[in-house]
């Protein structure tokens, strides 16, 4: 088990730089999730940590040791691939044991044997198989297994190696929805049992929120924000993170600052020409600045008993049972979304009144960076979780 430290990691392919200086600290035993849209560089980052790609610039340390030039096995990492990458001509048992049957030692790079002794290997494989409920499948071939079973074999192959760090590359994206939830729980449990450092890459923010101790949001080769799931949810550092974390995603409305007070801002909204007084640290903003305000669908409700009021026509209603999502007319922009009670009788075409608490509103400046909120309402700030 080990700490991992990335400092100024860069990666370029020819002239195209895809990672522009990544700094992340990962503590021993932490479950870290890299999340971001496709093509943001999160998988590349994982492959750099794994040693499958060379680092163009910067330093990668595992357990205090610089590992830039080490091979994947020297780094003592184990990787679970999106495609599982099981050896098709080997049984489940052999798939798991294969990495153990050979050492780096010996002539021709272990071609003629070496590695650990058979009894020890057998013990490890049986133990891993038991914890993953694979005992009955040890003598089957990968093609004879279902997707979920293959996934477990891939995880088993990582476990038997007893690595310092587990790397998961979108391991659930090939599974169907129900199996995905199960496997997600299994992975969470695995983390508790093994107390291992895990780095997990996904584009699914629900997986990130549910699994992570720490989420690293990657966007365009930069770290957009790094923090616990609730920190990211309640205190997004910028518009990108605000929109990416949370489902359905945050609503954004354009506006202009009309007055700056100590501890709050008045913003004139383009949407309905109303003024909102938002508890925000004004920072360096001044009157006339363009800003974007953000508010989560679940922080809005039907009615008019809260400070921030809107009225709009409902285009689409999605009824999920426990809640209904109203999608509202918003000109050419993305429709606004409101999470309302499951018993709401609002129909599409209706005009509704909506309201929210000013404390729930986020404000982003023209560069997309969040302005610090001054609210002390517990509903809208991240709770302190004891470690």
């Amino acid at each position, binding site marked *: 088990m080990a700490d991992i430290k990335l400092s100024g990691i860069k990666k370029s392919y020819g002239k195209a730089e895809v990672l522009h200086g990544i700094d992340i600290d990962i503590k021993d035993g932490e479950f870290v999730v890299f999340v971001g849209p496709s093509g943001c560089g999160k998988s590349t980052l994982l492959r750099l940590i*794994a*040693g*499958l790609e060379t680092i163009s610039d910067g330093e990668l340390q595992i357990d205090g040791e610089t590992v830039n030039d080490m*091979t*994947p*096995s020297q780094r003592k*990492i*184990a*990787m679970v*691939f*999106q*495609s*599982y*990458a*099981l*050896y*098709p*001509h080997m049984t489940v048992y052999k798939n798991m044991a*294969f*990495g153990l049957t*050979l*050492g*780096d030692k010996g002539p*021709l*790079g*272990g*071609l003629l044997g070496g590695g650990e002794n058979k009894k020890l290997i057998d013990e490890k494989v049986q133990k891993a198989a038991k914890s993953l409920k694979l005992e009955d499948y040890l003598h089957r*071939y*990968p*093609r*004879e*297994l279902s*997707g979920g079973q*293959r996934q477990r074999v891939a995880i088993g*192959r990582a476990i038997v*190696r007893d690595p310092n760090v587990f790397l998961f590359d979108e391991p659930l994206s*090939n599974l169907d929805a129900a199996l995905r939830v199960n496997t997600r729980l299994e992975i969470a449990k695995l983390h508790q049992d093994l107390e291992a450092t895990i780095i997990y890459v996904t584009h699914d923010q629900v997986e990130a929120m549910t699994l992570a101790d720490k989420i690293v949001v990657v966007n365009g080769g930069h770290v957009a924000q790094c923090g616990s799931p609730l920190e990211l949810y309640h205190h997004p550092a910028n518009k990108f993170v605000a929109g990416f974390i949370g489902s359905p995603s945050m609503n954004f409305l354009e506006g202009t600052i009309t007055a700056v007070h100590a501890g709050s801002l008045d913003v004139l909204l383009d949407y309905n020409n109303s003024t909102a007084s938002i508890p925000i640290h004004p920072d360096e903003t001044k009157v006339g600045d363009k800003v974007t305000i953000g508010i989560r669908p679940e922080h809005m409700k039907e009615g008019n008993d809260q400070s921030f009021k809107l009225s709009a026509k409902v285009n689409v209603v999605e009824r999920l049972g426990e809640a209904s999502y109203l999608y509202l007319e918003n000109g050419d922009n993305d429709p606004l979304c409101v999470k309302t009670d499951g018993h709401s009788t609002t129909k599409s075409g209706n005009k509704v009144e909506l309201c929210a608490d000013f404390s729930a509103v986020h404000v982003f400046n023209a560069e997309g960076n969040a302005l610090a909120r001054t609210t002390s309402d517990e509903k809208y700030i991240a709770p302190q979780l004891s470690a």
Partner: protein
Amino acid sequence: MRLSKRVGPLGVHAVLMCYTVIALFPIYLVIMNSFKSKKGIFRDPLALPTGTTFDLVGFEKVIARSSFDVYFTNSISVTVISLIFVLLLGAMAAWALAEYDFPGSDMMALYLAIGIMIPIRLGSVSLLKMIVGMGLVNTLTALILVYTAQGLPLAIFILREFIAQIPNDLKEAARCDGVSEYRIFWSIILPLIRPALATVAVFTMIPIWNDLWFPLILAPSQETATVTLGIQQFIGQYVTDWNAVLASLTLAIVPILILYVIFSRQLIRGLTSGAVK
């Protein structure tokens, strides 16, 4: 619509059957006539052997009057050893060309592929000179070297394509497992390209087995003659011993048929299924 649906496959099968008959007919003639007496062969070459025309004299002659066993051993050892070299070296070269990006790798692949387009027989004179220079005339080694060179271009070309199709994740998973590059080649790549190896083996083996040219110019001695060369002694300018020729041809089919059966069993499709996704 329905009719054309039925006629389609029927037509295809009719064409294929025709081709099969045409292709197999000479072989049928050879095998059938090898069991007939000389009179039987000439009186009615298309008839099956009957009680009066059935004769094993051809086989008796071949076995008694020539060193057929020597030819056979020569042919088999030349074919098998060349085959091993072609497959092993071909697969190794293909792996290197497919997997590692080194300066000039594409040029190297192209250079090797040129060998497919230029018949090796064009270089017979220089080859003979080289073999003489190395003092390998009338040895099986000379044949093995030439056949290995002859088989490599196509082997590398085909195997490289196959290796390139093996999912990258498999190799990377192996690298994460701490598997050495040699071991990846032996334990993962080779088993996965078995169908391709079998195809290449069949394509390589038949021209080697059937070749008359190189045995004739490089190793014509009695001790190093191959089956195709050995049979020539029954074909004279004025008299041809058809019984013996047909019998030896029939015998010559057997080993290559056995090898073919062995390789064709490897041609199982979908071997990689279950590897990824």
